[in-house]
């Protein structure tokens, strides 16, 4: 498999992102405002308490900054395949001598790299100045955080991939992807630190992939997990990627067989 065309797509997608400057500036502001306001809410909730269930305010702040930052970087184009099926261009895409899945991930990584450099990092700096973030527990933990974050990206990507495949059967996937975002927003820890979930919810979440996206990397960053636990959680991340990807791939194969393109 030659990588060159995929890299070209990655670059193209990176450059496309940089076209709208004003829009981009506003979205950085939006992210900072979101982080800042959740920080305010939790500051009020904490009041004079130093910690709640062993979780300090600084840890909550760090959770919000990191998970909301990663949330920006992990943004998926949920309309990639549905859009192509809708307008019929999927037919020509399938004829190209390259994998459409590969292209999908290349384009997505292009925009993710752009957002990492020009959205996540500026927002992180502003948040650091305004409210402050805890440093990583150790350089080693920081490395593990990066690896786990990459795996989290994988989980997020495979969820988006699998759901997009449903567009072979349903006409509008808007509802499906919107509901996906609702569930991820609530159960991945971006709006609600997962430490504070009630016991029963915690037990349900253990069997779902959502805490693998942002929460595992954040826990590693904060040094909450021992070496063995890190290994275990990362394996869980990998297992989720494999399961969801395989489901998506089966749907993809069935979908292609079923696909009928009229005109285009």
């Amino acid at each position, binding site marked *: 498999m030659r990588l060159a065309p995929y890299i070209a797509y990655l670059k193209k997608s990176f450059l496309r992102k940089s076209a709208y400057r004003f829009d981009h500036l*506003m979205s950085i502001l*939006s992210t900072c*405002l979101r982080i800042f306001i959740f920080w*305010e809410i939790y500051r009020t909730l904490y009041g004079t308490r130093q910690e709640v269930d062993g979780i300090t305010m600084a840890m909550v702040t760090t959770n919000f900054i990191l998970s909301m930052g990663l949330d920006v970087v992990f943004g998926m184009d949920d309309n990639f395949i549905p859009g192509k099926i809708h307008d019929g261009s999927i037919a020509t895409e399938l004829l190209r001598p390259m994998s459409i899945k590969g292209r999908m991930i290349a384009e997505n990584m292009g925009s993710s790299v752009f957002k990492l450099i020009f959205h996540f990092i500026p927002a992180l700096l502003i948040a650091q100045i305004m409210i402050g973030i805890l440093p990583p527990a150790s350089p080693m933990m920081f490395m593990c955080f990066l690896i786990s974050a990459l795996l989290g990206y994988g989980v997020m990507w495979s969820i988006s991939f699998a759901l997009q495949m449903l567009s072979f059967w349903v*006409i509008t996937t808007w509802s499906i992807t919107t509901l996906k975002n609702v569930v991820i927003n609530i159960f991945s820890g971006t*709006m609600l630190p997962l430490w*504070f979930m*009630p016991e029963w919810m915690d037990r349900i979440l253990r069997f779902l992939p959502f805490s693998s996206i942002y929460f595992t990397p954040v826990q590693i960053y904060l040094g909450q997990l021992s070496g063995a636990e890190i290994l275990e959680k990362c394996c869980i991340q990998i297992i989720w990627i494999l399961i969801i990807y395989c489901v998506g791939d089966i749907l993809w194969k069935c979908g292609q067989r079923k696909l009928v393109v009229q005109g285009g």
Partner: protein
Amino acid sequence: MRSDTLNLTWIYTKKIMKAWFQYRSDALLRSVTVFLREATGIIVIYFTLLKFDSLNGWNMYEMFFLYSLLFLTYGIMIIFFTGLRDFGRTVRDGSFDRYILRPRGLLFQIIFANADWFAAVGHGGLGVVLFLISAQKVGIEWNVWYAVYYMFAIIGGVLIQGAIFLFLATLNIYLLETSSLKELFYFNMRKFAGYPVSLFQKPIQILMIYVVPFAFVNYFPSQYLLRKDDMQQYPEIFLYLTPVIGIGMYIAAYFFWRYSIRFYKSSGN
């Protein structure tokens, strides 16, 4: 006003309803999706207060009550102001030029020629549900006067948000692309208007009271009915200003629109 204006409004409304509900199951699914999407904030508050009991003195039901006003007003507002929400697109794809050629007021056409019923049902429905859950539990002794106050508060809230939409739509004439501004100053702010404004720091309070006055959409009207302690830091008069601000803002936005529309240049092809 021409005598057939009402007639035209009715025809528009009928056509919109037919178009939006052409595919019945899809329409239902979409409305439910909007409902659930907007409920995200509520679920987050539910879990948060399950853990922390109260936020700045507001318990879960009081928070739901505060939130319900936001959704009720949006649900009503979007029936009228969808055309303004999507005005950027109308300008960019040139269909605004068609409006100009028709022998009716521009704003009239924009307001009555489109209505996002999925959003109206989704948001409005959530508002009604939250109101029903909370209204009994927050200790309000409902009487005629309160009901009248509540109605005026809703009208005011609708006008405030309508005026913000009208203002942002007017900016399209100068800027062409304002969706990020709308995202930042409207939709982003609205997420936090569900929380008592008193818990934020001064700059954000000023933003929510004086710049994008969401505080008057739900916080002050709720305070009038609930009388929580954190009201003490604001002037008493704020409790009664919602309809006045709504009308004032709408008139101001309307004149800004009238003034700006003269500079409209088609971007179309």
